[in-house]
């Protein structure tokens, strides 16, 4: 179980993390997701014990490991946590096996035991034949596996990942996502994973915290985030493709929503929007931007004056640049937000 209570971190006058509180049960897979500069890496470094909070506390399994109010933190090595760095931070002068072995050696395990454990984790990651290579002699994906093997070898109770897939190509990234989930299941350790990629968050997490400017915008399961976004920021950040937000005064005059005298911004899911064949009183005319096939359907995007609408719809469309697209909004929005972005 991990409990974060009013956690804050200042750097001089800049507050990177502001009063964050959340709690996940043991064995969860928590993803901290947000745009760059939202404070997610600082959060992770505080969880790892590399950074002392300036306020609030962190508890692992009921035991306080960092106390920003008391200005102390338990050393990284004594918190039963392992970390995979974004750069992997493999020690370049040690072989793959050496990298995995050294932390065990530091922990004081015997030679025989170490050799067994190294073989075991290399096997778990499918890199048992790379033991004698140096980090620069293997590919990026293999380096990633070594970094994970090194982290799990001492059997930490908590696994921390700092954007571990950001250096990999798209295909490898998808493969490693499932690989990480497999490792998570195999070790049954609580995992905390930092990323700016909401697809990773949605596919891997049991719990997601969306961070923005040092605050938690919303905390919940991936399904909850998509179904009930609590702010305009979350609504446009999660989901593939993310939901559309339309200013109330841009609703076409012939649309039923015009009668309700709405204000603020209205959220429409791409799958609720359809594409009309020609102009109509209730449709929004936009410039065609792009179209792509998506699992047997078409994803069509149009832009106009900074507004961007995406519809996922059936049908065979032929558009080329310069064409107009006529989007038909559903009679009711999926959610409404006020001008500050709060859900109403």
């Amino acid at each position: 179980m991990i409990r974060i209570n009013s956690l804050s971190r200042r750097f001089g006058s800049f507050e990177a993390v502001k009063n964050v509180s959340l709690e996940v049960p043991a064995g969860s897979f928590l993803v901290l997701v947000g745009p760059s500069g939202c404070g997610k890496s600082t959060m992770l470094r505080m969880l790892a014990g590399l950074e002392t909070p300036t306020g609030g506390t962190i508890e692992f399994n009921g035991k306080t490991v960092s106390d920003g109010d008391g200005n102390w933190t338990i050393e990284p090595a004594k918190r039963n946590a392992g970390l995979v760095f974004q750069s992997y931070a493999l020690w370049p002068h040690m072989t793959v096996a050496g990298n995995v072995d050294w932390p065990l050696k530091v922990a004081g395990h015997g030679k025989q035991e170490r050799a067994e454990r190294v073989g075991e984790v290399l096997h778990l990651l499918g890199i048992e034949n790379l033991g004698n290579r140096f980090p620069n002699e293997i590919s990026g994906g293999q380096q990633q596996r070594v970094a994970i093997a090194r982290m799990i070898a001492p059997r930490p109770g908590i696994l921390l990942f700092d954007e571990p897939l950001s250096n990999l190509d798209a295909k490898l990234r998808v493969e490693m996502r499932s690989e990480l989930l497999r490792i998570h299941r195999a070790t049954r350790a609580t995992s905390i994973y930092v990323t700016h990629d909401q697809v990773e968050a949605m596919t891997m997490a049991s719990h997601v915290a969306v961070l923005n400017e040092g605050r938690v915008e919303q905390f919940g399961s991936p399904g909850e985030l998509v179904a009930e976004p609590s702010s305009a920021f979350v609504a446009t950040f999660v989901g593939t493709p993310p939901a559309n937000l339309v200013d109330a005064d841009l609703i076409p005059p012939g649309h039923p929503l015009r009668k309700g005298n709405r204000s603020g911004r209205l959220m429409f899911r791409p799958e609720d929007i359809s594409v009309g064949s020609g102009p109509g009183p209730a449709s929004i005319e936009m410039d065609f931007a792009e179209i792509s096939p998506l699992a047997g359907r078409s994803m069509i995007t149009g832009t106009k004056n900074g507004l961007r609408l995406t519809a996922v719809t059936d049908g065979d469309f032929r558009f080329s640049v310069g064409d107009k697209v006529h989007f038909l909004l559903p009679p009711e929005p999926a959610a409404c937000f006020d001008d500050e972005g709060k859900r109403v």
Partner: protein
Amino acid sequence: MTSHTLWPRGLALAGRPGIAIKLAALGIVTLLVALPLLKILAFTFSDEATGTWHDVLFSRLSYNLFWGPLRNTMLLGFATAAGCVIVGGFLAWLVAMTDIPFRRTIGLMATLPFMIPSFATALAWGSLFRNSRVGGHVGFIEGLGFAVPDWLAWGMAPTLIVLIAHYYSLAFTVIVAALATVNSDLVEAAQLGGARRSRILAGIVLPVVLPAVVAAGSLTFASAVSNFAVPALLGLPVRMQTLATRLFGMIGIGQTARGYVLAILLILVSAVFLWLGNRMISGRRSYATMTGKGGRSKRFQLGASRYPLFAVAFVICFLTTIVPVVILFASSLAPSSSALFSGWNLHYWIGRSNADIAQGQPGIWHNPGILSATAITVGLGVAVAITTTAVGLLVAFVLARYRDSIIAAAINQLTLVPLLVPGIAFGAAYIALFGAGFGPVPALYGTFVLLVIAATAYLLPFSVQTGRAVIQQVSGELDESARMTGAGTLRRLAAITMPLAARGLASGALIVFVKIIRDLSLVVLLFTPAMPLLSVLAYRYASEGFPQFANAITVVVLVISIAATLLANRLQSKSQPWLKD
């Protein structure tokens, strides 16, 4: 990253970690750099030196003392800077941007002249072009029966030529590094836009490398005005004085106060131009760093001028690297410098004393003065390599860890000061500080310790830079990932930091060793007969009319420094299993 997180909790709670280490670093840097310079400045305003500033600047003597040497110094500085930028820039352009044949060879050769000490090049010039004006042996060219005019044998012209031949490689190194960052994408983008070759050069390449060209100019200017050996060997015999030789002369005849004033003025001349150069380019550097990984670089096609340009480049490199070394070597074997390539024997190397040759001086193998100078020189190189590495690491560590503190900022500024101070002026400052004892420190003049301290201070900017590179290489996530395992500071130092840093440190130490072995300007004032050094011995033999002994000693210096340089290069680039591409 703040200091708190890097220390165990107890220490973090203890308040201000590392105040002791910060103060230690500040103390060392202050003692090494600030005190000598303050002392020399204070001395020139003390009662002992009353009227010295006036004598030097505004009296009947002042033309001879200062303004005349200043004129020569400035002339040498500007002309050397211009020559170096033209020659070095030309070679850099050929190597970095064109399809000239043997690019790598030229690129390597163009960096070599700087490794040959400038007094070696000057001695080689003398062996070729000496005429009978100042007596003694004539050089090779007069030996062949040609008359060498005075202007080519002595004074401004040969000094200037030798300075350019020595320092153009400095300009080359700076400019070629900048040209290498001109991504071929940049050039191709201009080509796609339809720009001609000359237009690309003027509109794209030059603006991008301009900061490097300015830097090369101000560096070579400062180096030329600081140089002592070349004007001393080629100008002094015909009374051509520069600030450096005048300073040397004043201290030599016991007029130390005037010498110190000249040292301060020399520092000002050198520093002002370095500062101006820096100012011109500051703020513009940013776009030189906008490089990603460019594709395979596409080179300018030189076409028909490919081989003529190659010939020019090769002749420049050949004359400034191989020719001086061959002349020195031949001269150390030939009985007379007027016949360099005949009658070779080993007298200057292993001969016993013979009254017919060189007034009975035995060859260097049997010459106790030279043998002990060799031992002391190598000892000094080793000692300084160790001290600079230690000080450089300590200072770099403090600078990296306590980046934001005022003390760190002060340390940082002080470590850069020696860059502005010519070696001979630094030597003068050290005599001023340590000539007599102060406080608990005894008088150190003439001791090995003084040489070590002065050299450590002189090389501080270099050693701190090496230390920073090493620390940067091994800190950050590599060290944090070791902390995550629970390894203590010492264990991380032994298992992670040292193995990764060792080669960088060793090659940095070797380069320091070489710099000291072949330095003349710093040690020429600190030298005493009880503490002889090879470079100073070579200079004294040459100025007392035994050029071939000087040449033989210089060959020894060259051999030691080339061996150490090769070893350093090998360490730096030797294929480490974990660094292979």
